[in-house]
């Protein structure tokens, strides 16, 4: 499950936790650390929402920055399922994904800025709301930065 108190799981903006369907994302073998060029594989499932209420589902494998300043991100892999796709295959079906990871940017646990990688699933509902879940993973093995703070 992507929405747990697991400290290895990336938090979501608080507002996204409201009115959202239940989304679970798992990576094969529970893998957390990948090397550049490796393939990230996994599956996701959507629950607690009626198929007719779904407008679209988007899966992204992306990196983003996190810290005190401006934010940046880039989507490495993207796929979108329409309501028709969801109805054709069944809502609760486990849906697989995979993509080969790039050489950079590597995950980085800096003090002022961090680079995070994750698999993100966003479910768009017909009522205009959406639900998001993320599963974090690490690309590369860059050591943590040391904090030198007053």
């Amino acid at each position: 499950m992507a929405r747990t108190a697991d400290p290895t799981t990336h938090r979501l903006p608080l507002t996204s936790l409201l009115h959202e369907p239940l989304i679970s994302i798992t990576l094969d073998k529970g893998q957390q650390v990948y090397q550049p060029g490796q393939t990230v594989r996994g599956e996701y499932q959507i629950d607690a929402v009626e198929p007719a209420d779904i407008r679209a589902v988007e899966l992204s494998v992306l990196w983003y920055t996190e810290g005190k300043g401006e934010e940046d991100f880039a989507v490495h892999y993207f796929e979108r399922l329409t309501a028709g796709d969801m109805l054709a295959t069944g809502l609760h079906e486990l849906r697989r994904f995979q993509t080969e990871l790039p050489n950079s940017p590597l995950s980085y646990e800096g003090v002022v800025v961090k680079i995070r990688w994750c698999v993100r699933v966003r479910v768009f509902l017909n009522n205009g709301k959406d639900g998001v879940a993320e599963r974090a993973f690490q690309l590369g093995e860059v050591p943590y930065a040391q904090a030198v703070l007053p």
Partner: protein
Amino acid sequence: MKVTAVQPPAIRGGFCPPQNPFATRFVRPGAMPFLFSPPIDREALVAKLAELQWRGAIVGPHGSGKSTLLAELLPELNRVGRRVVQFTLHDGERRLPIALSDRALSDAQTIIVVDGYEQLNAASRRTLDRHCRRYATGLLVTSHEPTHLAQLYQTAVDCELMETIVDLLTRGDRRFVSATDVERAYCLHGQNAREALFSLYDLHERRWRELHERL
């Protein structure tokens, strides 16, 4: 989740870095809910703005939640049929970045939202005001100081509110930031919750690394 993968060298004892709940990602307007003082809520505030003929100001010091409140109100404005055109002004932006002759800004269903109204020079404010009156266009602004517009809401931060915000952001996980830390940040930054949260960001970074070193 049980971590079964090979850990990177910097992780010892299975320690995974906790996410910093004070990062921009979580504290920026739109990510963090605005905490109203009951009985006021966003619906009531938009109703009050309607009573004010869609002309009002959100007033409060730096970092006290004006933009966060705006982000909370915008969906509600859309819901009640207002077409929102928003401008966010930064230091030194003395004019709106669009000509007011633009048709998109000239009808009674539209509400022009200016975040950082105090940046506009006097001439730009007068022009904007005249334009809005002429076309019955709404005008909602945020400002550090009272304006000629009726005050819709005054944002303010006290130590108790800071504590509530921190509890919300950390989801009760107070391993790295204590109530004393929050009080100290509030005393240091006063009404500027944004700066106080950024100082807690630094503290969080230092504390988890200290823990990591001990493991």
